[in-house]
């Protein structure tokens, strides 16, 4: 049995043929049920780190382990994202032509084969985030805070063990931001889900178990 859900060893990420450095020789471990906040200025590599943790991007050098195993292919990472990892984006990334209920149900296609069951599960998740009455609205009809709640509900669709949140309050006003952070904290405590949150906002640092700072692609 291992305690680390994510382990990064000597990870570097370069762009434009090694001309642009995003991360350099980074080693990091995230434990189960931990809340880790990653803070740093804009362009420091925070989001890149988060993307590497869930396979949305591949390191130029180094290794990324999830639950002790190193996924080798896009397919393996996609498999993990459908079952164990939820992602919350700064810009929500909801599909505007689908209703909130349909957006929440989208990740369930891989695991839940009954349309009726998917609908029921999605409605339960919307109730948990307080948006059951908005199930049949489309994202353009929702406020920023409501959209991010839908995104959080979507990230919980397949009962993940890890949620990665990339500046989840970046596009929200302070009141909505506080509400979203409260929701994430509640999920972290009740569901015992590991959370890795990226932010550049110091006021978002009061929720975590551990805080790391990244500057110019390295952990300070």
């Amino acid at each position: 049995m291992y305690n680390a859900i994510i382990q990064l060893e000597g990870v570097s990420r370069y762009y434009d043929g090694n001309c642009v450095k995003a991360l350099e020789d980074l080693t990091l471990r995230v434990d189960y049920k931990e809340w880790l906040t990653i803070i740093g200025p804009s362009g420091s590599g925070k989001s890149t780190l988060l993307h590497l943790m869930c396979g949305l991007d591949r390191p130029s050098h180094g290794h990324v382990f999830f639950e002790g195993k190193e996924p080798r292919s896009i397919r393996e990472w996609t498999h993990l994202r459908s079952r164990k990892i939820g992602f919350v984006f700064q810009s929500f990334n909801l599909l505007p032509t689908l209703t909130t209920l349909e957006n929440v149900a989208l990740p369930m296609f891989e695991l839940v084969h009954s349309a009726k069951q998917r609908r029921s599960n999605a409605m339960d998740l919307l109730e948990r985030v307080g948006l059951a009455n908005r199930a049949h609205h489309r994202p353009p009809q929702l406020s920023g805070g409501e959209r991010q709640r839908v995104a959080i509900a979507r990230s919980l669709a397949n009962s993940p063990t890890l949620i990665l949140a990339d500046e989840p309050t970046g596009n929200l006003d302070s009141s909505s931001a506080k509400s979203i952070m409260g929701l994430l904290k509640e999920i972290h405590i009740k569901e015992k889900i590991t959370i890795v949150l990226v932010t550049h906002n110091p006021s978002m640092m009061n929720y975590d178990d551990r805080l790391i700072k990244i500057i110019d692609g390295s952990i300070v």
Partner: protein
Amino acid sequence: MRLINIILQNLSKRPLRSTLTTSGIALAVASFIALVGLSRGLEYAWMKNLMDRDTHILAYSAGSVELLTGSMDEGLSDALLQIDGVRDVAGELIDLISLDYGLAILISGWQPDCYLWQSLQIKEGHLPTLQEKQGAVIGRQLAKSINIRPKDKITIRDQSFVVTGIFEQGSAMSDGMLILFLPAFQELLGRPGKVTAFNLRLEHPENFKNLERVVKNLFNRFPEIQFTETRQITKNNKVLKILRAMAWSTSAIALLMGLFMVLNTLMMSVNERTREIGILSAIGWSSSRILTMIVIEGLFMATGGILLGSGLGIGLLKWLAGLPQVQGFIEPQISLSLILEVSAAAIFLGIAGSIYPAWRAVKLNPIDALHYE
């Protein structure tokens, strides 16, 4: 929510583009049905014409590309009758003649006492008697086209013939013909003692081995003549082979154009939905599911094209077959096998046109797709 709902929403997001692509496939399907249906219609009309007469074997000059250009001595019929298994022989002179009405029609000259006359189903008037040397019978369809009734006269190359009766066989080619006595037709064409073909009726045509034996004996005895069983007549005809090839080639080009339309539409669609595809990958949709979604979009357009095109093609074929210039030569053939063939081709092009865009979609790096504007 089902995958099908997402697919339908994707298609309806760009209704004009989806409709144009579906219409392109429909046109390809319609042209396939019309062109191949026409060429098969010509073959069927000819074959049915022979079968209506109770002819089992048709004999014509060996090496003739076009049946109408062949010429044989009428006297050969006696020699043909000597072959064991041959019950009747009827010489026939056939030609395509333009009437003053502006129509080109098939005219056939039959020996006065041959069995072919008995196969005609006279609906009005009567068969010409042996005394009515300039008598003629006319098919129902042709009679209607040129407004001819029994006892009316018809002029062919300045010679006058009297229509004694109207027949109806129920096939386009038969009902579009005019039939004269052979000697009168030979005189008209300046081909005394000549025929284009011999119609042979056998004693036991249902016996396949007997049929084979008779054909073999005929070939051995008359190497200068081609003997073809009625059901095979259209397969061996070189002109029909050319027509068939032309119909297929033109249809293939139309289907190929349909393929490119699907490819283009889905390439544009995938490009526009790059970010959306990135989101689907980010939330855990497998490559196979994304690929399936895009391929099914292509299949939807192909299916829509098949349904629309089938209706259009059948209507077009019936309209073409009804044109005066074509009447009497073509019997529109819309078989289930024709519809299935073109459906299979359209489904193939729906899949083929969507595979590359789908492959491109799943090859995208998710993070690059998410950042795509």
